[in-house]
């Protein structure tokens, strides 16, 4: 029921999405903390402007991988190449990262959106109320963002990221512990983002959600790549025993 509303907002935002940063190629990507390898010689190529879901058991290194792609973390060795090039500040500005635990400023709901305006130097007065209305926060726009529930904070964090007009959205378990209504809103925003050409990479443990949204799945375990295939094959004909066990809830 939110889809037409979301589409209208996306159109108003006049997103100029480009995918010339694709493919994102991970070359022998290794990340260690104090000698402990979190990711080990990962080789992967993410090509399509579709939804890539990263799955794997707890501690597999999924969130670290997302932060490495975003450039928050530096690899210990190996590299991430964006259409053959190293990451630039221009490329960083094309991304938005949604954290599992939303990071909101100690300001009001509306001021969290104003902050992006200040940062980008663009005015979004024409759309801010619509964005808040979309995620059911219009009545709370003057309330402190930190006093919102976790689900409300995540919704605010997602619409705030849209003001960055990203070409790539990275989401780290954005619907973990959220109610079905909030999950539905967030999934609808993800689906619409894809329709507008935005590349989505998101981490989830929710197998049903992955089935609903994923075009391709990357499965990692113990910091190593186990499988990378299109969603249909991944869920119907998993190649490895680890993935089979994971999908059957044994891992």
């Amino acid at each position, binding site marked *: 029921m939110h889809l037409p509303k979301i589409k209208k907002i996306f159109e108003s935002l006049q997103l100029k999405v480009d995918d010339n940063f694709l493919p994102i190629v991970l070359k022998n990507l290794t990340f260690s903390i104090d000698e402990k390898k979190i990711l080990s010689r990962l080789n992967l190529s993410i090509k399509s402007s579709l939804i890539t879901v990263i799955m794997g058991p707890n501690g597999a290194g999924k969130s670290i991988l997302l932060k490495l792609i975003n450039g*928050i973390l530096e690899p210990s060795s190996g590299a991430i190449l964006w259409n053959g090039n190293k990451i630039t500040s221009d490329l960083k500005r094309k991304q938005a990262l949604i*954290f599992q635990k939303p*990071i909101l*400023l100690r300001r*009001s709901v509306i001021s969290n959106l104003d902050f992006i305006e200040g940062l980008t130097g663009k005015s979004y007065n024409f759309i801010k109320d619509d964005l808040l209305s979309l995620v059911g926060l219009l009545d709370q726009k003057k309330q*402190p963002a930190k006093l919102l529930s976790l689900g409300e904070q995540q919704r605010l964090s997602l619409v705030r990221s849209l003001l960055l007009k990203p070409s790539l959205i990275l989401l780290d378990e954005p619907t973990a512990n959220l109610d079905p209504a909030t999950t539905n809103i967030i999934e609808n925003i993800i689906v619409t983002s894809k329709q507008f050409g935005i590349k989505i990479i998101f981490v989830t443990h929710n197998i049903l959600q992955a089935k609903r949204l994923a075009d391709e799945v990357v499965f990692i375990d113990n910091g190593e790549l186990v499988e990378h295939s299109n969603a249909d094959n991944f869920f119907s004909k998993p190649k490895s025993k680890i993935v089979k066990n994971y999908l059957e809830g044994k891992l």
Partner: protein
Amino acid sequence: MFEFAEAFKLALNLVLSFDSNLLEIVFLSLKVSLIALVIACIIGFSLGSLLASNKFFGRGFILIIINSFMALPPVVVGLVVYMLLSKSGPLGWMNLLYTPSAMILAQSIIITPIVLALSRQVIEDLENEYADFFKSLNMSKFQIIKTLLWDARYSLITVSLAGFGRGIAEVGAVIIVGGNINHFTRVMTTSIALETSMGNLPFALALGIILLLISLSVNALVMALNLTSKRYAFA
């Protein structure tokens, strides 16, 4: 007991009649401590935010020094400033000894480490909370510091009030570098010490009451700020 009651009565009379001598001393005390506080805040907030948002070799050592300086004995500060400003000292040519400027300098030295150390801690805690978000937005150092200072403003005001409390109540340094000269460098604390030694208890007590009232007001302000910041979830 009678003497105390009598002294208290006389003191209240002095306060309520806005005694000109008393007011002069109170205003000079406030002027010296407020100017010292402004200097301390300019230095403390700038260096505090730089220290909070930069990791470099030797940072831990610098933090230990700054934290230790929070407990600088005022008489030692007074002595050092005296040596600097005395005729034979390196800054003797400025002729600042026994002037309010010397007292401002001494109080700034006492307050700055407090404002610096506490604001560094406040800003660093907030920086840790926001760090990943800032990095994901690829923000410049200037944008980060601006955001941190704004979002930590309530805590920073509390920090500055702590610095002001330390300055206004201090006696050791200002008596050494100010000289407690009547109508020129006499402030509340030095005056209380002098009047007490001279047996003029009502005047000393009147100043003591005002000092306590200032201290109470500062504490009430800190509490009100904390409540406000919590109400807006800034804390």
